[in-house]
């Protein structure tokens, strides 16, 4: 069943329209990868779903509930969590406080936090450390853990492994696989083809603020021309 449906989403920065009717649909337990060249509008799509950027057109529904135009603070309450590009941790605050902010919508539900920490055990030893002093890999894990604390039904990930070493990348990917197995719908913005092929179920290709194509992963594997056409890559 469809978990999240985005239809005809339009968004602009000032007078420049960036999204020209983005449509996506996402099932529970599915990883949809969003690919496209720099500036295609991937980050803008996620920010519009989060209500950080107010869409100027289109509709967003979650399990049939219309979320369009809700204040940004209501979106996580509805069940959508976000790992933004560049992580945007509260770097002056401790790891523990960052996780507490993730839990903001659910009271002190420590079970969720424990589950998040089980996925990223290194964070357990660093609860009192300021987030800004974590290594790049640890910061990515914290950004994921913080979003998982929301207890999301939909998780939006914007290049969560940007700039990471292979071992940290593997940890993040394992976490994505785990969430998928738990039935979370994951929308993953990802540039690395091998990551997409490993964790993705489907790939949506974005160009100039529109979705140009949407294919099951098997088709992407079978037809390297797709990647070449939309992201200029060969496998």
């Amino acid at each position, binding site marked *: 069943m469809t978990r999240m449906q985005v239809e005809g989403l339009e968004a602009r920065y000032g007078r420049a329209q960036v999204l020209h009717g983005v449509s996506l649909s996402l099932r529970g337990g599915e990883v949809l990868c969003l690919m496209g060249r720099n500036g295609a509008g991937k980050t803008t799509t996620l920010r519009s779903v*989060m*209500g*950080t950027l107010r869409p100027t057109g289109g509709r967003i529904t979650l399990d049939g509930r219309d979320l369009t135009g809700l*204040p*940004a*603070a*209501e*979106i*996580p*309450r509805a069940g959508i969590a*976000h790992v*933004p590009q560049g992580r*945007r941790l*509260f*770097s*002056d*605050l401790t790891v523990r*406080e960052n996780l*507490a*902010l*993730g839990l*903001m*919508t659910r009271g002190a539900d420590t079970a969720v936090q424990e589950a998040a920490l089980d996925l990223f055990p290194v964070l357990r030893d660093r609860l009192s450390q300021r987030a800004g002093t974590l290594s790049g890999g640890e910061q990515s894990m914290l950004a994921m853990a*913080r979003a998982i604390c*929301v207890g999301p039904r939909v998780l939006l990930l914007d290049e969560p492994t940007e700039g990471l070493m292979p071992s940290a990348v593997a940890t993040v990917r394992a976490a994505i696989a785990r969430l998928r197995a738990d039935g979370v719908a994951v929308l993953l913005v990802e540039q690395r083809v091998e990551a997409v092929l490993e964790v993705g179920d489907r790939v949506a290709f974005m160009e100039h603020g529109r979705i140009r194509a949407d294919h099951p992963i098997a088709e992407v594997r079978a037809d390297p021309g797709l990647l070449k056409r939309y992201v200029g890559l060969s496998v």
Partner: protein
Amino acid sequence: MDLAPYLLLALLEGMVQASVLMLTALGLSLVFGVMRVVNVAHGQFFMLGAVGAWLCAQAIPGPPAIGFAVALIAAPLAVGAIAWAADRAILRRIGYDPEGTIVSTIGLLYILQQSALIGFGPDARAVDPPFSHTLRTPWFGYSSYKLFIVAVAIALVAALWLILRRTRLGLIMRATQFDRETAQNFGIRVDRVYSAVFAVGAMLAAAGGVLVVPNQQAHYLMGTDPLLLSFVVVIVGGLGSLPGTIAAAVLIGLSDGLLSVFFSPTLAAIASTLLVALVLIFRPQGLFGRAAA
């Protein structure tokens, strides 16, 4: 001439000054830090606190301590409510636009000041201290009420510190200060945080106003000096830095006390102005602030 008694007196006076200044400046700094609003009307909240203390003293019969105790709680609450309403009615409507908030808080300054003139009148009015015990030193007697001011100010700052560091509300405020957009993405209703912060900032100034009245009398124009001095403290301490604000308030309060006792209040005013100029030139992030990234 023996300097010790003068020095002690100057230090005591400086500490009293510093305490009230610390409360007012912390309010201004908190509002700027979290909301990025330069609240030009901040001194009026101080004035309203003082006027509120006078009203309580008039309304409540019996020993002055009772009226004062009521004022110390009721006046900041009432002023906080006014600030909360001003945030909803004005600042939120203009979307916290930086220039817009400066202009509109100037307007708020005059509305509050002229309302006080109409309701309270043009005269300065005294309030009896809650107790008038005098502490004896070998050289002079000193009002124990003034030391009470210092104690209450320290207690209030400690309470603010605990709220910011140890409570959920404080965590929400700090997260909003750091990155309001991401805070919203985790369900923080930033508009409510702003209203609360604006109210708490005003309450700190109002508490300062209540504390000085037995010392200084209430007057509808009394909000100007605390506003200017608070700006001095906030600039010297670093915008939005609470430890910096506390340190700068103590520094400026003490130097003000020392210079006023040994030389003249005018020299004290010149010195603090000079300090601001030097800080702005050589260390624009404030003595204790961090450089902008």
